[in-house]
């Protein structure tokens, strides 16, 4: 599986977060703080803090070198803190750096990491970030608000992907109130700043003298060595701010070109933990005495229909194609039944998502009828597919097979990921894409709002855009959820996405590895957090 871009757009925030954020401290005060979220979510995913089924039972132990075999890397590997591109980049960045706030692995809700609180003013046109005291960088310096400002400015100056979800902030006018407090004005109300910072887009904090060649962060591991396409090593950071963590003495991340080699290496004891496995590998790992952690993520490889191009410009065609999919069979055939069923809209972890729309089921007769009325009784479409995410090319085949039952002929054009992203992505009428777990508004910001960089379906509906803008300016959580529900209903009826299923995250490990838990974010291995993982001696 060539998962070149398995860290595509998408970030997330969940129900608890927004409600909590918006209700703590009165109507106007939005507080994410120790009093709210942090109390229930010790960031970093130590075994006590995360739900799911952790691997390797028993008590965590200190020490040992964990050897991880991962795919998706290559000679273009980077250690860049704020613009990791591949899954392997995220695994490395998760060892060295941390964010102010991140997605909780169980719910997807924001949980505070370096920040103690992130509060808006009454209309969300100004946000105040207060960071935790006494957090050290690997070079011994203490984290300050100046470092936070430097980090956010660095993202802005380099137009790193994190900028997309940071909203209309005015960093030139930002002020450092005291060593631990930063105040940032916004050009327009922006009620989802916390969710934007929590996304997978790596708004990671680096010191003011950050040197990418010798990276320094606040993460649980320090920089040891890095050879692109081969191996990187990360010794333990002894002054890590979370007491008693990390458990491991050293983390070694090794590049693998394919899954078979990963499995062989695990079976022969050359690595301890492997990631991004397909469902067919589960039995191989278990037969060899290892264990598997399967995460029900809300990340997905959708089919994208351009709503401005024939035949998809006719909403009946889009509706028909969505009705062609037998989602249970799709999940079974593509993901071995380990994924979760999708329903064609963003925001599966959103509070507004639940009960917004009914689960869509396959209805071939209705699909045929819609196609006939749209004037396409014998529809032929060309689907651009590429191995850009788990099960992508298999998904295209299964979709084509299911579509054929209704007489729709799907011709699949498979391209390598580089060709796909250079020539087809966001260009062709019918293609595939990759999204990580996310909340509705932050995903819409990347994929459907005016100027969104990943507008794969070319959504420009004026009514939708106006609802979306209203939601961003709505500070009250309940009111905003109602708006999001309206947006979801629109997408469900008229949108350009087909999301048959969410792919599972599958990690295999030997019996010595403990602390690997299910994680909803779509980023592998505890959402790329390492401090909670241990090795039995």
């Amino acid at each position, binding site marked *: 599986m060539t998962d070149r871009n398995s860290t595509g757009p998408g970030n997330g925030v969940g129900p608890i977060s927004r409600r909590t954020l918006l209700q703590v401290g009165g109507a106007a005060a939005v507080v994410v703080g120790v009093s709210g979220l942090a109390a229930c979510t010790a960031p970093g995913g130590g075994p006590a803090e995360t739900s799911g089924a952790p691997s390797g039972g028993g008590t965590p132990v200190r020490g040992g070198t964990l050897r991880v075999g991962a795919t998706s890397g290559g*000679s273009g590997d980077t250690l860049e803190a704020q613009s990791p591109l591949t899954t392997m980049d995220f695994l490395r960045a998760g060892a060295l750096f941390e964010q102010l706030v991140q997605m909780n692995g169980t719910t997807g809700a924001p949980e505070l990491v370096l920040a103690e609180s992130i509060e808006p003013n009454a209309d969300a046109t100004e946000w105040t970030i207060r960071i935790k005291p006494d957090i050290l960088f690997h070079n011994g310096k203490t984290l300050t608000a100046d470092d936070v400002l430097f980090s956010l400015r660095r993202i802005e100056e380099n137009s790193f992907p994190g900028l997309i979800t940071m909203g209309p902030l005015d960093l030139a006018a930002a002020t450092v109130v005291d060593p631990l407090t930063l105040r940032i004005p916004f050009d327009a109300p922006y009620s989802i700043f916390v969710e934007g910072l929590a996304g997978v887009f790596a708004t990671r904090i680096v010191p003011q003298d950050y040197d990418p060649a010798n990276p320094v962060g606040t993460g649980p591991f320090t920089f040891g060595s890095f050879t692109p396409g081969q*191996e990187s090593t990360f010794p333990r950071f002894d002054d890590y701010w979370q007491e008693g963590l990390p458990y491991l003495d050293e983390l070694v991340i090794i590049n693998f*070109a394919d899954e078979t080699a990963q499995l062989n*290496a695990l079976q022969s004891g*050359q690595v301890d933990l492997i990631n991004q496995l397909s469902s067919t590998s589960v039995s191989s790992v278990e037969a060899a005495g290892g264990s598997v952690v399967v995460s029900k993520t809300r990340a997905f490889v959708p089919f994208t229909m351009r709503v401005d191009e024939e035949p998809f410009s006719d909403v009946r065609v889009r509706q028909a194609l969505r009705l062609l999919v037998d989602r249970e069979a799709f999940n079974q055939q593509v993901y071995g039944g380990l994924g979760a069923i999708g329903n064609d809209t963003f925001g599966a972890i959103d509070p507004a998502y639940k009960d917004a729309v009914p689960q869509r089921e396959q209805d071939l007769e209705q699909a045929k009828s819609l196609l006939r009325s749209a004037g396409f009784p014998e529809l032929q479409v060309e689907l651009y597919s590429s191995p850009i995410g788990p099960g992508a090319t298999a998904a295209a085949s299964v979709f084509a097979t299911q579509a054929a039952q209704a007489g729709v002929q799907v011709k699949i054009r498979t391209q390598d990921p580089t060709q796909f992203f250079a020539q087809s992505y966001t260009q062709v009428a019918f293609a595939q894409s*990759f999204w990580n777990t996310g909340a509705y508004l932050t995903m819409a910001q990347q994929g459907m709002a005016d100027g969104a960089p990943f507008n794969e379906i070319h959504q420009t509906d004026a009514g939708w855009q106006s609802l979306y803008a209203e939601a961003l300016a709505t500070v009250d959580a309940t009111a905003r959820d109602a708006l999001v529900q309206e947006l979801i209903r629109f997408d469900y009826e008229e949108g350009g996405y087909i999301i048959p299923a969410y792919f599972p995250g599958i990690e295999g490990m030997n019996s010595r590895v403990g602390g690997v838990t299910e994680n909803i974010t779509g980023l592998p291995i505890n959402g790329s957090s390492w401090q909670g993982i241990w090795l039995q001696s």
Partner: protein
Amino acid sequence: MAGIMTKSLAAAGTPARPRAAAGRAAHPIRRLLLWRVPLGVLSVVLVGVLTYLATRVLPGDAASAILGQFATPEALASLREELGLDQPLVPGLLSWFGDFVTGQFGTSLATRGPVTDVVLPRLENSAVLILIVALVSTVIGVVGGVMAANRRDGIFDSSASLVALVASALPEFVVGVFVIFVFSVGFLDWFPAVSIIPPEDRIWDEPIKLVLPALTLVIVTAPYMFRMVRAAMIEALTSDYAEVARLKGASTARLLFRHALPNATAPAVQVLGLNLLYLAGGIVLVETVFQYPGIGLALASAVQTRDVPVLQFIVVLLAIFFVTLNILTDLLVLLSTPRRRAPR
């Protein structure tokens, strides 16, 4: 592979042919060198040019490969400028050629470090693997071929011929998976399944990790040597002069090693040359199966990331290797065939 081998065999086995025999014919060796060396240089240059053109024609470039889904127009433009990808075709080709000739092999677009830093350590690892495989498969092929020819249609000959036939019919990655299963993760836990080593090490620092990749390639290449030596030996042993030698009371050993084996040298050299050529190009799959840190994996990665300088450097190195080896093979064949090395 069989098809490729057969085709290449015919090509490599054909000695250089003089274009015109003007006046007194030149010495065959001089004639071969005078003709083949300039042609070889031309071939290498052509390979360089074609590789450059092919990489320009490929959809997508290093910037879009690196950025992938995040390749927004602004990000693409910025990275392209940083990587120098905005150079037009012909000036780009000329500057690459000029740099290459003067020993400046450029900077990897992916790692942003010198191309040589990316390629040379891996080249050493691959060279070690290829040489070991060539040596072992030659010894096995020659010894097996001589033994089989000596007792033609005996038990050893029949069984070895059958094994060779089966082995030569199997793709190398199937053999690779098979040896991993037998010697690592299935029956016997003798050797590591994959050949991952720390980047600063070379494969000879951990020779145990050479075993399975080498074994795989020996299984794939030795049968050709075996079959060629066996056939040449049988032909020699059934010839009139061998019969005469036998009638004159020559011992079996003398018959085999003094009379027959020298006649098998030329075909053996040809097969050795072909095996080396195959190994240089064909180790990509085996290196992938074993995660062997060699030039094959580097080549695959360079194609994936559209890392043109690395790609060109590797391809041109391989072209030089191919051309040199072809000339050397023909030279050795000429030297080991007395009737052809004298001027006519």
